[in-house]
């Protein structure tokens, strides 16, 4: 494990000497200001209110709840994800603006936990989306949640928490798992491949057999029809 961490990672060199200062400032601010979207999927969610309110007060770490995926930085998955909720979780994740982070709270997100034998839950969350931080426990205490969040903050500050890049780099892999669970016709409203190109992250593993399958079934997205008045009953 140690060796893996020491493999030098090539950094794109920036020509502007101030760029580095600026990057560090942004990274610091990123780590000190996290808007979280808590998608409370399972029982573990019950430990979030004490972590947010007066007993432990997340706001002193700069973490505050937000209500829409567009505004959020962290997606908190608190507990088991059933197949049905996983679809919503993926839609939500894809709508968030990068850089974005996922935290899996509870053992159920790590390996299925006590729902291991259930036919209706997804076992490993990081098969379907990149998870930056797992907080294990059934359920983890608020202290553990705060500890996990602090860990994530540290990783964001040093620039290690870049799981979201993985989602765009290896979209085919994640899509494959999603298709295995939801069937071949699975598609989300977000065009992930185009976004990967936008971020400059599209690589050899972004597209593959699964995205080819997606292309085959994909229905073009249509803007919602704007209509005034009620639809006539038939």
């Amino acid at each position, binding site marked *: 494990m140690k060796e893996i961490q020491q493999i030098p990672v090539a950094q794109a060199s920036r020509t502007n000497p101030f760029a580095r200062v600026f990057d560090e400032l*942004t990274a610091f*601010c990123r780590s000190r*200001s996290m808007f979280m979207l808590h998608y409370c999927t399972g029982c573990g969610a019950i430990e979030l209110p004490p972590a947010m*309110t007066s007993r432990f*007060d997340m*706001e002193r770490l700069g973490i505050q709840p937000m209500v829409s995926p*567009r505004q959020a930085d962290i997606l908190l998955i608190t507990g088991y994800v059933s197949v049905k909720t996983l679809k919503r979780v993926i839609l939500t994740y894809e709508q968030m603006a990068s850089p974005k982070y996922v935290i899996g709270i509870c053992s159920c997100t790590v390996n299925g936990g006590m729902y291991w034998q259930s036919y209706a839950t997804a076992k490993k969350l990081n098969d379907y989306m990149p998870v930056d931080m797992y907080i294990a426990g059934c359920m983890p205490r608020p202290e553990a949640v705060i500890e996990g969040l602090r860990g994530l903050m540290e990783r964001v500050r040093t620039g290690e928490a870049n799981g979201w890049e993985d989602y765009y780099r290896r979209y085919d892999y994640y899509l494959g798992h999603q298709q295995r669970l939801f069937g071949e016709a699975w598609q989300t409203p977000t065009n992930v491949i185009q976004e990967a190109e936008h971020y400059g992250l599209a690589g050899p593993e972004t597209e593959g057999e699964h995205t080819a399958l997606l292309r085959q079934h994909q229905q073009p997205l249509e803007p919602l029809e704007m209509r005034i008045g009620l639809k006539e009953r038939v």
Partner: protein
Amino acid sequence: MSVLELLLELVLMPIVAFVIGLFMVLMMRKIGARLQRRVGPPVFQPLYDIVKLYGKRTQVSHGLMHDIGIIMAVGGYVAAETLLPMPGMNGIAEKGGLIALLYVIMIPSLGLALGVGQCANPNGSIGISRALTAMLAYDIPFVIVIFGVAWHFGTTNLVDIIALQQAGGIATWGAVEMPLLAIAGLFGMQAMLGKQPFEIYVAPAEIATGPMVEMGGKYLGGLFVMQSFQLYTAAVIYVTLFLGGGENWLFFLIKIFAVVAIPMSIAFLFPRYRTENLVGLLWKWPVMAGLIGVALLMY
């Protein structure tokens, strides 16, 4: 005053306003935290939020109007700051006056309405329709208050209004001479800032922050900047009209922070009204207080 000095003031005034506004946002969050027995955010939290939001690599834009809407929302307030005298700097306040100010501070709401309209998110549209309804509701008492103040001082020039109040001391402050109008103004300010119980258009639990629902990254950053300007603007208007403006920076800061602390302390104690209740309430009490106040002034 030379052109250069004026230009310098025009650049400085919004910047100073923004910095003060950041501290007002901090104060708001601190008050909320203390009322809920929490510690609250660190001192630079509002700044972290804004830098973070501008640093996001968002790819979402809903079109040209969406972008222009945000620029209008921030730009409207930047323009308003140059019309609001602060100690030592008057900007173009003398040329503008109350009426121009009244128009300029409506621009942000309209800009937001245009921008959000293009998102085609139903929550956003509901939020904006509520915001414009709220504007309709608080503008009536607000206009009555402005009229009363202008009638009392005999001018709509903000610099003159401040000079008149400062010349006569505390006894000639708007709040002392026109207490009813001052109360109506406070009421209106609560609604103008969109604080509970008048928080109908943000309503996170109900319409997912309304106008902000589709705003991520830089767009939300723009709205955060707008919020700090908004707090500053509302406070300075109130201080200028009723509390004699700022004699010097110390008194100015004390007054404006005290003024915004009032709606914020009230806000965290209340839930939210429905839209029609808000309109009814605002058209009844502050309008009544304002009209009686104006009648007393004229009598």
